[in-house]
């Protein structure tokens, strides 16, 4: 059991929760995730840990209510308990001195990009963060990233905030004027694929944080297997970050659609549009 300390709404259907999880907080490094079950009857959902406080023993997660279980997590009030919080899982982001690093976050994927951007800046890199969303309300963590002293470029598909366009438009502009030494992308699959294609011709090292369907998160089930450079890798223990130029994004997208019918039924049960 893990108590929710407080929650806040950061966008429509996007909730931040601070959760008391001392063991997870003590070991967490940027890029790692937790698996959460809101109730003892729930499925196991992998969610990125956006931040953690070692001595106070809490972690912060950002969850978008897209299905029954994520909706249950998001609606857990302060003071209530989540049945299970397991972590940290996955290999942390590689934090080294690369030079100029562009971190790209799309939608709720920005929660994944956020701690890695902060850690890279802390290690002495010059970090530019591109935060994208369909519309203004879906752009998250912009203030926190600015407060941390990072250069932030906001893009929206509808032009309601920042640059009117896609994250890759902003990325292409940066590549032309101030080429990065490394790019890290976290967000929807089409976005990560587009980022990989934007950097590929320039030979810029690019990492993508993948989000396959997962159960145990410890390498036991193989459900999260992805193809990277033709090899089978398990996102839970070999990732979640992989060389974006080698990831088979089509396959990842197909495998993530394995249970669409079931997910639709679950959304209906939970009353989610």
């Amino acid at each position, binding site marked *: 059991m893990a108590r929710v300390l407080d929650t806040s709404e950061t966008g429509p259907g996007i909730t931040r929760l601070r959760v008391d999880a001392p*063991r*997870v907080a*003590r*070991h967490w490094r940027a890029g790692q995730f937790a698996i959460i*079950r809101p109730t*003892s*009857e*729930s*499925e*196991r959902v992998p969610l990125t840990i956006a931040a953690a406080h070692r001595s106070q023993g809490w972690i912060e997660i950002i969850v978008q209510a897209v299905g*029954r*279980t994520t909706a249950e997590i998001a609606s857990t009030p302060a003071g209530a308990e989540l*049945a*299970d*919080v*397991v*972590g*940290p*899982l996955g290999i942390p982001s590689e934090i080294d001195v690369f030079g100029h690093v562009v971190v790209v976050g799309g939608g709720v994927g920005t929660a994944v990009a956020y701690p890695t951007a902060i850690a890279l800046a802390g290690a002495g890199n010059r970090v530019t963060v591109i935060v994208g969303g369909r519309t203004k309300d879906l752009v998250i963590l912009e203030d926190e990233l600015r407060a941390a002293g990072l250069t932030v470029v906001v893009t929206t598909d509808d032009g309601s905030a920042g640059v009117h366009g896609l994250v890759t438009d902003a990325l292409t502009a940066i590549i032309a004027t101030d080429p990065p030494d490394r790019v890290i992308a976290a967000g929807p699959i089409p976005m990560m694929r587009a980022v990989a294609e934007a950097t590929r011709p320039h030979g810029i090292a690019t990492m993508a944080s993948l989000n396959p369907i997962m*159960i*145990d*998160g*410890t*390498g*036991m*089930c*193989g*459900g999260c*297997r992805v*193809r990277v450079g033709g090899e*089978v890798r*398990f996102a839970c*223990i070999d990732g979640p970050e992989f060389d974006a130029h080698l990831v088979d994004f089509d*396959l990842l997208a*197909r*495998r993530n*659609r*394995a*249970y669409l*019918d*079931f*997910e639709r039924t*679950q959304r209906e049960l939970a009353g989610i549009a």
Partner: protein
Amino acid sequence: MTTTEMSTKERMAIPRQPMPELAPETRRRSFAEVNLGYDAETAIREATRCISCRRPPCVAGCPVGVRIDLFVPMIAAGDFAGAAQIVADDNALAAICGRVCPQEAQCEGACVLERKHRSVAIGNLERFIADWDRERGGSPVEVAPPTGHRVAVVGSGPAGLTCAADLARRGHDVTVFEALHEPGGVLAYGIPQYRLPRNIIAAEVGRIRDMGVALETDAVIGMADTIDELLGDAGFEAVFIGSGAGAPRFIGIPGEDLVGVSSANEFLTRVNLMKAYRPDATTPVYDLEGAHVAVFGGGNTAMDSVRTALRLGADRAVIMYRRTVEDMPARREEVVHAEDEGVEIMPLVAPVEFLGEDGRLTRVKLIRMEQGEPDASGRRRPTPIDSTEFVEEIDVAIVAIGNDPNPILRRTTADLAHTSRGTIEVDPATGATTKRGVYAGGDIVTGGATVILAMGAGRLAAREMDAGLRHGE
């Protein structure tokens, strides 16, 4: 005439009592337990077949050394309470062992009756007496006064639970760390409830908790707290690693990434641990209603998968195996049960490619195999026969060809020596690893084996750890 007065000849004349079971047509679509267990009268009759050998080979054949020579005659004499106490003292997981142990290769395989008659059904009797005991609240188990020594156990499967119970009974303060949200390891995620009902696992784990063992779920040692941290700040003096055989192997043929192909671990975890068979489940599993399901492999996990597929409504559930039925590592009882339920077995075929449409599996291309020269396992090596490829229509494929050791602890524990296969290296006489104070046993040492062998390893390590702690090592 009472049973105690019977001659050896009279005892041997009693036929082995069959295990009552649900009829195949009833059970093939149901998750209810297949084996129903003996009643008291049948148990006494079966136990009476024991001729009380002077040097009982059955006890030597049991990896945890249950005093079979004592408890079976007690059942024959109707002293169920006495028999229950022996079993409770010797085996913390008796009701589980009585259900899932391959007794034919252990105690029953060693039984002197086996050669001319059939062995005493020791497994069925162990199950009977463990169930009898549980239904009456359980025999008290003696726990030694606290020693003040603290021990960590990594993994709550059969090896870890046995080690924890043995250490607790010797008075040590034991904490078990489990990565999943429920204890039991492979007992919980791997073995289906129609072979091992969940209340049996819960009861035996509960008994181990009652001995004073602390159990922490959701704790992935290696990711959160390393072995070194357990031995350092966390204050444990010794660690037992029973983390199991974790990472599923895949066949390595084209199309294995199609939706519709999964590892047996994934399929069974969805159904067993995540309860995907329930109508109100929150975790999905492939819809098998009317489906054609192929399971690749010939072990117990393959049998568990194929029989589970039937229970989820599969129209056709087929074992596709590259060797012969005789060469299958699965227990005979499992193969017979599967066939009785309508499972098809297709021997001497190997998959060449999975084929699909729109990213979903629809067919498998197979090739016929023939038996060649004996290989390292003593079985004849299967080799493909040229130009014998053929295609079968399938909706779901389950790959049950074994596991590689989980790499998490290997990556995070620098001074723990591993074999080239990735298993942890131990001294077979003690279970000690190359790291001081750290012991290991079960599938993480042997690769995929059985529940009872893992338990034997847990027991051996517990004895050695106890001696080490007492001598202040």
